[in-house]
């Protein structure tokens, strides 16, 4: 991999730090009136998700990390791994629970996800921003009650539990924002 000097550090650049793949979030150049210049760099550890700040002498460099983001189709889970496929090459990848994290509750077969590969292995999985999922369990719907504004918990086909309006019933398909876990509407409507 190429190596990058502090003045090439940009948000989104993937580098190796202390043996861990990291994504740079922010890079601040500071220098006293005279003397040593520093770069205060915010990074996200892509293995742990932890964000921290490391200071470098300006001009120091880090190795790039072999990290790429790819759009893949979610296939299925066997309980231990979640399986994804590159749609063009049909190449398959299996992601473990630490890579999938909380995303598992939004994964629906055949949906397109962003899979981050590190040295060819899934490191993290981001579901689509919006998914459409079926309600598998909720209190009976209050027909016609579209105005009261109340809501109730509903369990979705992936296991996620979200809040939905009172008028929805089991078997209906809803649209959810996976970034907030919020109900957006009935599927097919906006």
């Amino acid at each position: 991999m190429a190596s990058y000097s502090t003045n090439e550090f940009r948000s989104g650049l993937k580098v190796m730090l202390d043996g861990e793949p990291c994504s740079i979030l922010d890079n601040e150049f500071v220098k006293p009136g005279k003397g040593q210049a520093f770069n205060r760099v915010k990074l996200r550890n892509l293995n742990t998700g932890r964000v921290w700040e490391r200071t470098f002498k300006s001009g120091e460099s880090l190795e790039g990390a072999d990290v790429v983001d790819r759009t893949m189709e979610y296939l299925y889970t066997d309980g231990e791994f979640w399986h994804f496929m590159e749609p063009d090459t049909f190449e398959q990848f299996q992601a473990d629970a630490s890579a999938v994290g909380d995303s598992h509750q939004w994964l629906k077969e055949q949906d397109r996800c962003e899979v981050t590969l590190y040295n060819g292995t899934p490191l993290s999985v981001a579901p689509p921003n919006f998914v459409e999922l079926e309600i598998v369990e909720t209190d009976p719907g209050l027909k016609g009650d579209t105005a009261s504004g109340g809501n109730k918990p509903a369990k979705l086909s992936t296991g996620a539990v979200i809040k939905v309006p009172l008028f929805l019933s089991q078997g209906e398909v809803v649209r959810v924002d996976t970034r907030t876990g919020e109900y957006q509407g009935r599927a097919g409507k906006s």
Partner: protein
Amino acid sequence: MSWQPAAELQVLRRRAQLLATIRAFFAERGVLEVETPLLGSSGVTDPAIEPFIVPDGEVLDTPRFLQTSPEYGMKRLLAAHGEPIYQVCKAFRDGESGARHNPEFTLLEWYRPGFDHHALMDEVARLVQTCLGERPMHRLSYRALFIRELAVDPFTATRDDLALVASEYADTGSMAGDRDLWLDLLMTHVLEPRLAERGACFIYDYPASQAALSRIVQEDGVRVGQRFELYVDGVELANGYCELTDAAEQRARFEADNALRRERGQQERPIDDRLLAAMAHGLPDCSGVALGVDRLLMLAIAADDVAEVLAFPWRSS
């Protein structure tokens, strides 16, 4: 690709107004405006400053250096005429790019024969108040600042003491360096942000190892460089010296800089023999200061990024 300027028209007007204010300030005080070359045959030796180098050209027999400040040329004028002088010019520093740094920037530099650094601080304060409005101007020695804020004496603490204090405030990984590295780290990471709360504050009398081109004196049992920095709202705005006038010591400092450059694997710089000859002829006792005009404008309009005050910042120049 955008061809449009970064600074808004009203900011460009404010810049023009500031420059007019500065010129009126010095005209009133009988300080002569001068110009010295931006392309010099020698560059600064300071290992922490890198110039841009113009390698060749029809009239060049050796590479020329875009000046990182007009200091050497202005000191030659001082040696020749002994008059108070000022200059507003562009200066260039490679690698210095960020929210408060543009590699090409505007400096105001002036020299006052017969002033010590405290007298010059008085004048800097007046100029800043003229440009930014009346405000309290504080003064604190470098030593008092470190002792008050960090309970560590920057003149006597060991390198390991300083590294330990620094480790409380910053994750530096395997960073290694001398005492000055850790002092600079504490200054930039801890003290500069805290200085923001003090409004406008001069920090003066630096450790001799950070004297740069200032005179070194013995004070309270330690060697002190008679240098000052002005911070306004946490922004480092000006750097001044009670100037070193001794040519032999100046040569020794240039050579020490180059020795440090060799040690660190940096390119050595040709020493400015014309400056040394001028100093040997006789530089009057004087103080001088360089003030960042772009940063002054940033403060005037409360900008967070230097790009807001430049017509065309580095990336779109």
